[in-house]
């Protein structure tokens, strides 16, 4: 399924984050895939997804500047593609 920022998402249940100076390491215990969340703000976004009705509201809450929204949505689409985040029912 394509990533849709109008919908609610969450960090996948099998994913754990480890804080690092650059952001966080994300490891999916199911697929054994390691990803890198390359900024602290992206970590806030990924962990904040489950508290908001859609991705846009999550980006607002994390204070992502307008000019960077496209980059963040692209990053989230990639994380959705690898299963690091998943649609919330």
């Amino acid at each position: 399924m394509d990533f849709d920022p109008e919908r609610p998402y969450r960090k996948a249940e099998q994913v754990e984050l480890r804080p690092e100076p650059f952001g966080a390491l994300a490891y999916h215990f199911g697929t054994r895939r390691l990803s890198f969340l390359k900024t602290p703000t992206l970590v806030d976004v990924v962990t904040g997804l489950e508290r908001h009705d859609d991705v846009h509201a999550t980006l607002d809450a994390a204070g992502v500047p307008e000019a960077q929204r496209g980059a963040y949505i692209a990053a989230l689409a990639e994380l959705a593609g690898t299963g690091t985040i998943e649609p919330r029912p």
Partner: protein
Amino acid sequence: MKLTEHFQYGLDAPICLTWELTYACNLACVHCLSSSGRRDPDELSTAECKAVIDELARMQVFYVNIGGGEPTVRSDFWEIVEYAVGHHVGVKFSTNGIKLTPERAAWLAGTDYVDVQISLDGATADVNDEVRGPGSYDTAIAAMRNLHDAGFGEFKISVVMTRHNVDQLDDFKAIADRFGAQLRITRLRPSGRGADTWHELRPTAAQQRRLYDWLVARGESVLTGDSFFHLSAYGEALPGLNLCGAGRVVCLIDPVGDVYACPFAIHEEFLAGNVRSDGGFVHVWRDSELFADLRRPQHGGACTSCGYYDSCQGGCMAAKFFTGLPLDGPDPECVRGFGEQALAGVDGASVPRSEVDHSRTGKQGPVPVSIGMGPPDRACDESPLAGMRAG
């Protein structure tokens, strides 16, 4: 700061680490990176292994690569695996397949957070057994069949590239596809017994080029453990971090608890400490002088003026060290040929060797290991089976 720069300066905990549980092995592969064979009487006990896992869990190390020796010949191996996954430390273990019975394969298929990597160094028995010993091909294939039949899913087949198997790459991929496995190929290092065989076994320059092209064409579908980043100087970078992670994002814990910068660097020069010392593994990882050194910006030395240095980063530290080359010079397999030139000037007598050697002497070839093991009763036992108790 770019992500790779963070990695160069080191992380608070390794991304993953290799943990060799025993020096005992039923095989005697001619390129064994840890010169395994006999168990060391001082190997970590079950309780000490669990204490290491507790530390890894606290450090949020997501998974460990367990190897050896042949880790499954430890009678407490499955207990250690269960303890690790129970504490949310995933396990990928490397094995020659000796203990992967249909029953064990079924157990593994039902256990989360465990991945299995079967070693195979030839797509045919003749090529494989020449390096890994008579019968080892059949053992590996039987283990693969057991995992496949048990519905384990995508296990790994791990191949060390040699002069004799580069031309079998497509055949390895076919074997992996046949068993629903993923192929992983890694670089032959002149470490352990590999120091004695590297010159004869390493791929030729033409084979290196073919290997690179094959890997570029396969993308992320074939794993490499990031071990071929020295080939990135051919052009496009291969998938992975493309840097030497030694002491920065990876390290090795050996069977007696010694912590080395990387699995291919078992030598006192790269020994950072021991997990049994005060402060344990965390202290070694965060505070050892050696690791602090490795995390400082490195100098390209003789490579600094080379236009390809940004691609290959000077290659593999262990490959240079164990061939007698300076660490700030070219990799011995530098794709531009500077390594070959440097090797020609090396005085063989000055090449460093590891003092850590558990090779069996006397009887050559594989030894059947079908019983459990406890600590050997004497430090000088020559057989990997000496002193082992049944059950």
